[in-house]
């Protein structure tokens, strides 16, 4: 048994050290073993109740978390704001404290506003897992990306990972820039100037796609929100495609066999060439499958183990 202790929440990676992260990814590997069994269920979290509280809609992430919790026999309740109290004017804090009176042991929280999971952790004094807060962080996505990359590349030490697309509005890019360097990788973020932040801690920035892709060990394309064009950040879709779409020809700039990742949902033939998404270079489906094992590992670590 490892002697390390873990933070009892996952808000971002500020409090996490490399050894803890490696250990968490190793636990995810163990959870793959459970998912490979004919009966994909173990009683490890029997008696715990987990709430998914999504103030911003997301079906895939929520299903992934809920299955992860159920496969370990936790009880799961889900709250989505669309039809609920926030529409009637209730604050985040009141909603969460109301739920807390019902004996929830851990919260999986998604909000359109950055920082709410941190506040929730203070309000509730219970484990909180950030399932995406605004443009700020989406740590389980970054963990499943890291897990998928390690599965393909082995250790990430010294590996160059290129992230391409709308970096400015991407919590996936921010969380990966925070996580991957902690595992030894070097991150280059690339996109049009209007979609790059002033700086991105953990990553270097460039507007030149070729520079980003050259020598890259893996490439991650991000979803382009088409509404960005309404705000004047992009002149036109064809112009974005001409400059930044990941195509088979452009992927050839990266190292031979460098895999392609995408956090989904994909805009086929916008940020990623449709045929490439289905090619053996693409790990998109693998990411989704790994997401469940990673989320099982996160739930296990925040709920079980010495305090």
């Amino acid at each position, binding site marked *: *048994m*490892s*002697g*390390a*202790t*873990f933070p009892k929440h996952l808000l971002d990676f500020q409090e996490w050290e490399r050894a803890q992260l490696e*250990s968490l990814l*190793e*636990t995810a590997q*163990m*959870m793959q*073993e*459970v998912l490979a*069994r*004919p*009966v994909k*269920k*173990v*009683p*490890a979290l029997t008696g715990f109740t987990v709430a998914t509280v999504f103030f911003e809609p997301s079906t895939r992430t929520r299903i992934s978390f809920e299955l992860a919790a159920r496969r*370990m026999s936790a009880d799961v309740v889900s709250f989505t704001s669309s039809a609920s109290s926030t529409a009637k004017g209730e604050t985040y804090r009141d909603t969460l404290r109301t739920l807390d009176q019902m004996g929830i042991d851990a919260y999986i929280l998604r909000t359109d506003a950055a920082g709410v999971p941190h506040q929730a952790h203070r309000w509730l004094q219970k484990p909180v897992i950030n399932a995406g807060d605004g443009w700020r962080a989406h740590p389980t996505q970054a963990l499943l990306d890291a897990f998928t990359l390690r599965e393909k590349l082995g250790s990430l030490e010294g590996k160059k990972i290129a992230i391409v697309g709308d970096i400015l509005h991407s919590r996936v890019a921010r969380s990966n820039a925070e996580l991957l360097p902690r595992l030894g990788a070097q991150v280059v973020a690339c996109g049009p100037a209007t979609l790059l932040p002033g700086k991105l801690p953990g990553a270097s920035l460039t507007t030149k796609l070729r520079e980003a892709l050259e020598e890259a060990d893996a490439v991650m394309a991000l979803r382009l929100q088409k509404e960005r064009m309404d705000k004047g950040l992009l002149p036109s879709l064809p112009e974005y495609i001409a400059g930044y779409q990941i195509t088979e020809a452009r992927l050839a700039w990266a190292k031979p066999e460098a895999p392609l990742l995408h956090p989904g949902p994909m805009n086929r033939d916008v940020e990623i060439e449709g045929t490439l998404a289905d090619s053996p270079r693409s790990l998109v489906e693998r990411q989704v499958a790994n997401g469940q094992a990673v989320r099982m590992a996160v739930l*296990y*670590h925040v709920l*079980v*183990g*010495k305090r």
Partner: protein
Amino acid sequence: MTFKSRILNADEVRRALTRIAHEVIEKNKGTQRLCFVGIHTRGISLAKRLVELVERFEGQRVPMGILDITLYRDDLTEIGLQPRVRETRIPFDLNGKAVVLVDDVLYTGRTARAALDALIDQGRPSRIYLAVLVDRGHRELPIRADFVGKNLPTSRSEVVKVKTLEDDGEDAVELWEVGET
């Protein structure tokens, strides 16, 4: 931890397993519907031996599975942080089978309890037996073994180490004391 004594040597382990194999065949009245399931890690090595012995005595090779019980334990919060989950593989239908669960040491009974749950999740055997190389007492649950290699009264401060050729390079059972030194 300090070494106290050797309880069984390689020959004695072999004889104990030989006797258990005979007892299993006798109790089950042959190899009909019989199968073995070893609990990680040393239970697997011992189960393999029993399958071979049964084949030698009865001319029938019975199926064998392996079981990991890590996430079935009731003391996960105490043991902690890095669960070591290993493979569970039962490559045959458990329904209607007479299963011999095999472990190295029977102590509190918590492993056996977890193994019963893990096994029953995979199917519905008609009967489950428990075979252990050493029963060291101190049960915390109402569980007993059907087949025992060696009954060994111990104190709680002692540790019983089962070694197997496959896992440790030799077959032996040793008694150790958790050292104060």
